[in-house]
């Protein structure tokens, strides 16, 4: 087992300050460990544009799952016409992807690292108000953040004329009331505005027309937490941490029936096998690995034979899945893949916002079929119908990217474990006419 505490700021910019997993790092300890150094440095020596260009050249990618370049996202925002113009930075802390626990970890252990990241990023894009959109169930996170915001205000890291630089920033915590779709950035904006949180049509993009119609940038917790170290140590240092096209470190993890479930800060490009064996200490006794999901429920399921893939955005795309949140899930040999997918699709079906037809209707339909297969009374043609649903909910077919994410584990599941699906079919039953009556039978060709 790797020693979690054998870390230094050069190699573990996110977690090197953590010495005790049971406590949070508040202002004194944070300041003693170079906390707010980056902020002081930037406000004194760097213009907002210079901060953007450092982040751009660091090639930092968004850590929420999509992996878009953060610097580029900031750069897309229109130049400010005048200083008083409103614009917003939103920190997306609506963590709800099943299997993911990284943002909660960062907020609860290092609240000030997140705040420093927010302040620096707001400075870079010229936002004077920032909202932290926090998941309602994260009760402890809210208490810790409130306390930290107060501490930072007392030190004038937040508020008016921050450290005499002339830069002002207010930070508010906004808690939701459930629903996974609020993590989609335009749905999240609607939610803050007090509208029903369906996603918005793009364009216009939030960078131009976001919260209350103003330029808005939405960044994930982990993305923002990367900013201070990059500003302080420079982009070439950051690029050299990993031996990979994806720069810097990433919180990666493994859960399921592994010996040591958890998360660790590692450079991009280590293999999933290293993560599973060296960090998560392999499978529990009596269990073997049957399949795994690289980064949350919306990433395509993979077989054991892909374990030697490098954990980075591109390599995982190539093998037909996504890095997602990089918090991997181990599926052991005791689990039936069809039942597992039923669980995953039930989640997505429950959380679909219902705005567009393929997603709203397709997901409940897939559940009906998966349930039949689990109960061994599926009919001939059912698996093909599932494949069709995957296709009809694929990229470009729905209003937002929720649906393609929802069906990607199912698509890969059928590809790699078709036998288990076929086992659920009772060939004595007549072909499917009866079972679809009542739910859109007109889709059948």
């Amino acid at each position: 087992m790797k020693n979690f505490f054998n870390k230094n700021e050069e190699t573990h910019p996110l977690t090197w300050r953590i010495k005790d997993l049971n406590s949070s790092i508040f202002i004194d300890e944070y300041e003693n460990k170079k906390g707010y150094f980056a902020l002081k440095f930037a406000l004194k020596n760097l213009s907002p544009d210079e901060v953007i260009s450092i982040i751009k050249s660091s090639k930092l990618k968004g850590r929420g799952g999509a992996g878009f370049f953060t610097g580029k996202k900031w750069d897309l925002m229109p130049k400010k016409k005048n200083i008083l113009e409103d614009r917003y930075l939103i920190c997306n802390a609506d963590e709800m992807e099943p299997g993911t626990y990284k943002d909660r970890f960062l907020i609860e252990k290092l609240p000030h690292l997140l705040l420093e990241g927010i302040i620096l990023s707001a400075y870079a894009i010229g936002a004077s108000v920032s909202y932290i959109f926090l998941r309602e169930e994260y009760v402890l996170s809210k208490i810790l953040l409130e306390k930290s915001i107060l501490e930072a205000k007392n030190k004038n890291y937040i508020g008016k004329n921050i450290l005499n630089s002339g830069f002002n920033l207010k930070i508010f915590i906004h808690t939701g009331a459930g629903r996974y779709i609020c993590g989609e950035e335009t749905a999240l904006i609607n939610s803050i505005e007090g509208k029903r949180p369906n996603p918005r049509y793009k364009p216009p993009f939030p960078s131009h027309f976001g919260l209350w119609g103003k330029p808005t940038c939405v960044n994930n917790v982990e993305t923002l937490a990367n900013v201070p170290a990059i500003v302080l140590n420079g982009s070439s240092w950051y690029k050299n941490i990993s031996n990979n096209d994806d720069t810097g470190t990433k919180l990666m993890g493994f859960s399921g029936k592994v010996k040591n479930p958890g998360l660790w800060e590692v450079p991009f490009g280590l293999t999933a096998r290293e993560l599973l064996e060296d960090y998560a200490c392999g499978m529990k006794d009596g269990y073997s690995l049957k399949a795994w999901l690289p980064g949350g429920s919306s990433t395509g399921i993979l077989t054991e034979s892909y374990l030697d893939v490098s954990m980075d955005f591109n390599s995982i795309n190539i093998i037909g899945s996504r890095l997602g949140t990089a918090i991997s899930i181990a599926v052991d040999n005791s689990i039936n893949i069809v039942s597992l997918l039923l669980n995953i699709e039930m989640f997505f079906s429950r959380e679909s916002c219902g705005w567009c037809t393929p997603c709203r209707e397709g997901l409940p339909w897939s559940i009906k079929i998966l349930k039949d297969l689990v109960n061994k009374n599926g009919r001939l043609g059912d698996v093909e119908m599932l494949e069709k649903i995957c296709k009809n909910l694929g990229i470009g077919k729905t209003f937002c990217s929720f649906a393609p994410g929802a069906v990607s584990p199912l698509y890969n599941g059928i590809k790699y474990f078709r036998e288990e699906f076929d086992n659920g079919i009772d060939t004595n039953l007549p072909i499917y006419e009866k079972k679809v009556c009542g739910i859109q039978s007109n889709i059948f060709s």
Partner: protein
Amino acid sequence: MKKILSKEEKTFILKELNKYKNPDAVIIEILKFVQKRLRWISLDTIKEISKIISVPASKIDSIATFYNQIFRRPVGKNIIKYCDGVVCYINGYEKIEAELSNYLKIQPGNTTKDKKFTLIPICCLGNCHNSPTIMINENLFSNVTKKSIITILDNII
């Protein structure tokens, strides 16, 4: 119509209203605040809020119905949320669900006769490395087992 909201709640609503340019933005906050005491949001509650903030009741309703943590039916004093996310599935949440259901003598989604407990599923609580996970009111419980869950419940009663 009998008034539902307390004086304190009305003051809260008016105070919140001042914070934003647009009254829509405070709807969720108001609903959550009011729900704390009333435990659920009835249509009459919505109508009353609608009058105070001058937003159509239908609009408030459209928001209230979207979020799963705004309850539109009376619930019990304690809300038990068991995680049915994929990792908790792998680690056997179904056994926990069955045990809870059996012990409280209610199906998921329902409230006990004495109005003490409501049992509902919830998606991943971001605690998968300590799964199975449940949340009772505002408290998170890690690595629960069929046995420990009963001890936890008994301590609440």
